């Protein structure tokens, strides 16, 4: 056997919950410059099911939290994302993308209108360049404050709502993609009803020195167990959600990535604030005339997992695509994947061959998400 996870050697950062992870038996691995738990003693499969059946608590403090203050913050942000930020109501959250001049994706992010400011969450591996990017483009219009002293926890799963309501009854008012300031375990938290699993749930921003108290309070509920990055990945894959650096990157546009839903009409051709973001010419042209490849869901037809990097061939043996994420879907009970295929092969149920260890295996283009979403919409 080979390919054990590499030992943690280089100088890695730790989140405010590091000691708690060790106490809970987390297997720590390097991820995006941090020492993070890939799983706890129960293992990825059980942690995945725990989140689908009850509730999982994730430490996502490695992600970047940034506060954008100033009356022109929303308008300025619209200059770097193809998203409607100006009309985002107070306490509402929206998925967004930083684009480059070629229409590619620099990162995906969440923007919340927190009233007096915008609260932005970006990917851990991209946060330094994202902050530099925002400073470069937004500095004249707003204050950009990385919230390095805050932790971020995610409570995800069908029991998340009742657990949260028992700690903070006002949380009942929250629906998917809305936010509120709540007091949890005596700590002032900024909470959004959102996540990265396809389940109902919350993301909780809290001062670093109060994070462990909040985490312990949540873990004290019998419905809640800690969940590591391994299950976070299998959960988001089943939910059909993109992982930056894999399913989307600087060479994939939002249209190719099947993320057109993230670009509101007001930013598209004919909209009141059309274009005005990097790569708008490319992206709006693609919306008008189509793309040559597209991100699709893929269902292997056998039990063999088809993973990132597998080539996809048509029946004649021509290369027509590549898998960008793939693995076993514990809730689906079968392997699931996603990837880019030439548009001619992107229709649902198109049969293709995935090359795994040199051999072709039949797969089909499938709809995503692979599991039903359970977002709470009131």
């Amino acid at each position, binding site marked *: 056997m*080979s390919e054990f996870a590499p030992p943690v050697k280089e100088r890695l950062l730790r989140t405010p919950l590091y000691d708690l992870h060790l106490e809970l038996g987390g297997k720590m691995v390097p991820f995006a410059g941090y020492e993070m738990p890939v799983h706890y003693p129960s*293992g990825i*499969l059980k942690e995945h099911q725990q989140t689908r059946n009850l509730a999982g608590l994730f430490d996502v403090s490695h992600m970047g939290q940034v506060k954008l203050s100033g009356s022109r913050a929303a308008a300025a942000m619209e200059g770097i994302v193809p998203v409607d930020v100006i009309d985002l109501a107070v306490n509402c959250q929206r998925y967004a993308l930083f684009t480059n001049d070629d229409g590619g994706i620099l990162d995906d992010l969440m923007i919340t209108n927190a009233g007096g400011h915008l609260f932005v969450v970006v990917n851990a591996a991209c946060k330094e360049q994202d902050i530099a990017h925002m400073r470069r483009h937004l500095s004249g219009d707003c204050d950009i404050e990385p919230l390095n002293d805050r932790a971020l926890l995610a409570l995800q799963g069908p029991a998340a709502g009742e657990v949260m309501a028992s700690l903070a009854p006002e949380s009942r008012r929250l629906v998917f993609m809305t936010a509120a300031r709540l007091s949890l375990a005596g700590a002032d938290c900024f909470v959004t009803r959102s996540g990265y699993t396809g389940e109902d749930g919350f993301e909780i921003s809290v001062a670093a020195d109060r994070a462990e108290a909040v985490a312990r309070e949540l873990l004290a509920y019998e419905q809640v167990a800690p969940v590591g990055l*391994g299950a976070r990945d299998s959960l988001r894959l089943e939910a059909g959600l993109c992982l930056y650096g894999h399913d989307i990157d600087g060479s994939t546009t939002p249209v190719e990535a099947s993320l057109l839903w993230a670009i509101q009409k007001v930013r598209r051709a004919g909209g009141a604030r059309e274009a005005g973001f990097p790569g708008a010419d490319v992206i709006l042209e693609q919306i008008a005339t189509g793309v040559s490849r597209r991100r699709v869901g893929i269902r292997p037809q056998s039990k*063999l*997992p088809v993973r990132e990097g597998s080539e996809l061939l048509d029946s004649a043996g021509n290369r027509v695509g590549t898998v960008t994420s793939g*693995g*076993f879907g514990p809730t689906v009970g079968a392997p699931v994947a996603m990837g880019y295929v030439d548009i001619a092969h992107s229709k649902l149920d198109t049969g293709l061959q995935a090359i795994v260890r040199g051999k072709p295996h039949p797969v089909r283009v499938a709809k995503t998400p692979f599991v039903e979403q359970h977002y709470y919409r009131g």
Partner: protein
Amino acid sequence: MSNIPTELKYAKSHEWVRDEGDGTVFVGITDHAQEQLGDLVFVELPEVGETLTAGSECAVVESVKAASDIYSPVSGEVVAVNQTLEDAPETVNEDAYGDGWLFRVEISDESDIDELMDADAYAGFIESEAH
């Protein structure tokens, strides 16, 4: 601490070998290996009749996270594979040294077995790998 039966021999790539005394051996992965890999979701085994060379890749075990190569600890011909793993790969996690065996080989060179570690040596090897 993982389970390391004294009657087995071990390879540095974390496979175990059980000598049946009739010119054949059973091969599997160690308890330590299955612990490190986590829940297995797929096992790809060699074909019966295939000729294996000691130290070469001959099977793949896949966890939720990743695929890992299995190396044959001995040379010889595959005479049986554990077909129950096709539907129940988790058997390797549950019973690594028993029902979770991978394949059986008719060995071509008995001395391959002498090259392998005994339980004490393997315990020491795991210890040294951890530091």
